[in-house]
């Protein structure tokens, strides 16, 4: 099954790489967001996923053992297409997911609700999702909580990205300090002459 890509896929992937969070060990802050999402939505399973070109990387989770999944069978690949939560009430009855079940220690995922992790520019880096092994529905309160926590999670990722950007610029400047700054200086002097 082919999943549509977001219109801004290339820039989205750039932003995702810039966070430096892909395929990295667990970070407590994201684990806690997954726990909070499970609690706020009263669901046994939750995850923070980052959607790379070919696969979804699970940055944090509760009630889930997988640490990556194929993009082609990932619920979150649909979540990143829109800027509001994506809900699958019963995956077994949904032709998009019926044949590629997501397994958890509690059994197959039937219910899924994910909110996109949006950067300030609107790139959906991945999703904050809650799941259950039985069909379900997302209450208004759970939806509001999920969206709020997704915003906190996305802000954390965006801060990581900004930190890395400034770090890179800073290192580049230090390098420039260490090597001769002559070429840049000669040009204005020549223009002045």
């Amino acid at each position, binding site marked *: 099954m082919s999943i549509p890509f977001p219109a801004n896929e290339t820039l989205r992937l750039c932003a995702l790489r810039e966070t430096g969070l892909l395929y990295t060990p667990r970070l407590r802050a994201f684990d806690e967001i997954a726990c*909070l999402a499970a609690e*706020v939505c009263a669901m046994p399973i939750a995850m923070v996923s980052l959607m790379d070109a070919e696969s979804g990387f699970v940055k944090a989770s509760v009630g889930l053992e997988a640490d990556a999944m194929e993009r082609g069978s990932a619920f979150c690949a649909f979540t990143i297409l829109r800027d509001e939560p994506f809900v699958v009430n019963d995956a077994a009855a949904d032709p998009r997911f019926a044949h590629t079940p997501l397994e958890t220690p509690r059994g197959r995922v039937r219910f899924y609700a994910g909110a996109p992790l949006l950067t300030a520019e609107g790139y959906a880096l991945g999703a904050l999702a809650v799941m259950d092994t039985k069909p379900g529905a997302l209450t208004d309160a759970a939806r509001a909580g999920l969206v709020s926590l997704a915003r*906190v999670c996305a802000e954390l990722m965006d801060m990581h990205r900004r930190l890395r950007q*400034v770090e890179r610029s800073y290192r580049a*400047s230090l390098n420039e*300090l260490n090597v001769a700054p002559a070429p840049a*200086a000669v040009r204005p002097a020549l223009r002045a*002459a």
Partner: protein
Amino acid sequence: MIKPPIPDNEHERLAALRDTGLLYTPPQEVFDSVVRVAAAMFDMPMATLSLIDTETQFFKARVGVSAMTTTRDCAFCAYTILGSEPFVVPDACADERFVGNPQVTDAPNIRFYAGAPLLTPEGYALGALTVMDTREREFSADDAQRLRDLARQPAEIMELHRRLRHLERAYGAALREIDGLNQQLAESIAPATRSCVAA
């Protein structure tokens, strides 16, 4: 009402707070989200993200509270920042520290208060994530734990703001140094280039 004591690490704590660059800044969606989650999680009419400055309590985010600041003397959070664990006042009217406190006798009429300190990695409490009610309430040890867990999120974001500002300052200094060196170099070779062009 008893004036809240000052923490032992007040000087360093205030420096860390200033470093975040978040004092007296407009609301930000991410912090608004945190207080909304806190209010919903504990079913409370009020929740705030408070930063405790020298003499003022500033609400970086708030629901159910209209003021943007209060004096530090009447801030419940001024007590919360004295420790690293959640601070709970089940009934402010029965607590001598808060009897007669204008926050209790007047709007927002706080009766119940629970606050978890916003801790930096060094252990400085910049402020608190709070939930409050106009009636007395109970707050279990489990509730306190959940509030503390939630408070780690805004604390982490504030810490990242602080690191970002540190880096930006260092970066700015490096850029100025480069500019200075370029300028010196340009001045030192200008006579040579002028004579070179003239020839």
